[in-house]
């Protein structure tokens, strides 16, 4: 299958600061892909290089097979980018903004598609309002609309839901999911891990300019082998042998962290030994957030080799 985005040995330094330290990444056409990482990990730098807004120190990037530097015109036609900042041109109305944006891509008579985007993003009522008069959420929608005027096969969204209310966020994701179903490749960065978990097939985790994990969400979650059990006991005393496993104590509950499901058997055996009854038991599965914390936390770069292989 064709690669939507191909990043090879990409490095970027700003003076002494190494924003990206040799990133390799392949995103296939049709994927719904997330870039995750703490602030300053290099997500936006990576996106800006893909978009041609930043020039790499070394390495190469191509979009749908077009190098973003050597063949930048084709590469940019293939790409729609929603910037992280809420930027707009205060001189124009929403419709003018979209018509002008179409023109930049060489498109005349794009009205029908613009009308469709306005409708999809619920902007029809605001089409002739000046950009200045729009609320933050509305401006965000216009940014999304602008990235779509030329029907790009690859759409990159840099934290599209930062500071956006719940209703708009859901509407936005519905629309972007639809675009993904229609064959567009979606790449996003987000701080909301639940969003990445709900939407994406694959994620890459960045930390200090390195990709520390790159896999499907299912694999990533199962790679973190720990799970937890939440127990309510009678009597409410945890047997001594289980004390080392305890990670948290809630009102009437003991939470134990296990190295895997097989350990549940040992826990039950220990409880039986002490004649302790289980009143309630819940098995807590790790979510992406835990994977994220584990990988971007202490483990850091040393684990990267294992994941990248």
């Amino acid at each position, binding site marked *: 299958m064709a690669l939507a985005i191909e990043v090879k040995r990409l490095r970027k330094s*700003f003076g002494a600061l190494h924003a990206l330290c040799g990133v390799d990444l392949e995103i296939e056409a049709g994927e719904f892909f997330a870039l995750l990482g703490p602030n300053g990990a290099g997500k936006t730098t990576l996106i*800006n290089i893909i*978009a*041609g*807004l*930043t*020039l790499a120190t070394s390495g190469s990037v191509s979009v749908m097979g077009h190098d973003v530097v050597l063949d*930048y*015109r*084709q590469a*940019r*036609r293939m*790409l729609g*980018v929603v*910037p992280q*900042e809420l*930027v*707009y*041109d*205060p*001189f*124009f109305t929403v419709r*003018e903004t979209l018509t*002008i*944006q*179409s*023109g*930049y*891509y*060489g*498109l*005349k008579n794009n009205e029908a598609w613009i009308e469709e985007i306005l409708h999809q993003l619920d902007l029809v009522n605001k089409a002739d309002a000046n950009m200045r008069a729009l609320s933050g959420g509305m401006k965000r929608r216009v940014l999304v609309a*602008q990235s779509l005027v030329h029907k790009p096969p690859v759409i990159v969204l840099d934290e599209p839901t930062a500071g956006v209310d719940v209703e708009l966020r859901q509407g936005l994701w519905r629309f972007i999911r639809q675009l993904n179903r229609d064959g567009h490749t979606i790449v996003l960065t987000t701080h909301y891990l639940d969003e990445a978990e709900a939407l994406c097939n694959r994620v890459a985790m960045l930390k200090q300019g390195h990709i520390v994990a790159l896999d499907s969400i299912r694999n990533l979650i199962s790679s973190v082998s720990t799970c937890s059990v939440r127990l309510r006991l009678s009597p409410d005393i945890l047997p001594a042998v289980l004390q080392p496993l305890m990670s948290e104590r809630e009102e009437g509950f003991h939470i134990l962290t296990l190295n895997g499901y097989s350990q549940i058997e040992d826990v039950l055996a220990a409880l039986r030994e002490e004649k302790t009854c289980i009143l309630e038991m819940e098995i807590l599965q790790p979510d992406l957030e835990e994977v994220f914390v584990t990988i971007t936390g202490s483990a850091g770069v040393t684990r990267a080799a294992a994941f990248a292989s």
Partner: protein
Amino acid sequence: MTGFLTLLYKELLRFWKVGFQTVFAPMVSTLLYLMIFSHVLEAQVEAFPGVAYTAFLIPGLVMMAVLQNAFANSSSSLIQSKITGNLVFVLLSPLSYREIFFAYVLASVVRGLAVGLGVYLVTVGFFDVAVASFPWVFLFAFMGSALLGAIGIIAGIWADKFDQLAAFQNFVILPLTFLSGVFYSLHSLPPFWQQLSHLNPFFYMIDGFRYGFFNASDISPYISLGIVVVCFVAVSWVTLRMLKSGYKIRH
């Protein structure tokens, strides 16, 4: 071509939407200069034989308005787009650096010519200033505004803040225009200052433009035109290099 035309259209629409500030206001301030200087100096000076001071002053002021507004258009558009961040929409698009260059320069030319024409048409109502050679007038107005439009791009890209741009305008553009012979003929200056003025490219633009009105000038309009064209080519080369390398706009 569509991309280039769209950026040009956007740049024209931008200043047209605030035309009161970008076209009408400079017309008013230029006319104020004209009223004051012609009142004070009319009786005293005759720059060219047989040409009254006010008649001499008008082409200078028209050209000054053309040049300053051409500079203001590209420089203020770029710095505003940089600071508000919406330059990103141009940078994300497949527009080439040449298309960006020519769109900004041409928009500056249109703004410069619009203001210049406005000032001229109003003065014609009060004073008797005939154009001797329209081609010369147009040629110098066009080349001058193109040159200042290109310089405006450099200033707009270079400046990180509005006060840096204001400094460029106040310490470079304004002295060069004021000391270029807008208000006086170079022949009225002491020899040292005459020599110095010949190093000022703005002098050739104003002098050549004035030739189009009176068929008289301090030096030959062909030489002036040659110098203006050379300056335009040199400044354009620098501007295109800046745009191509992404200086200050693609980090």
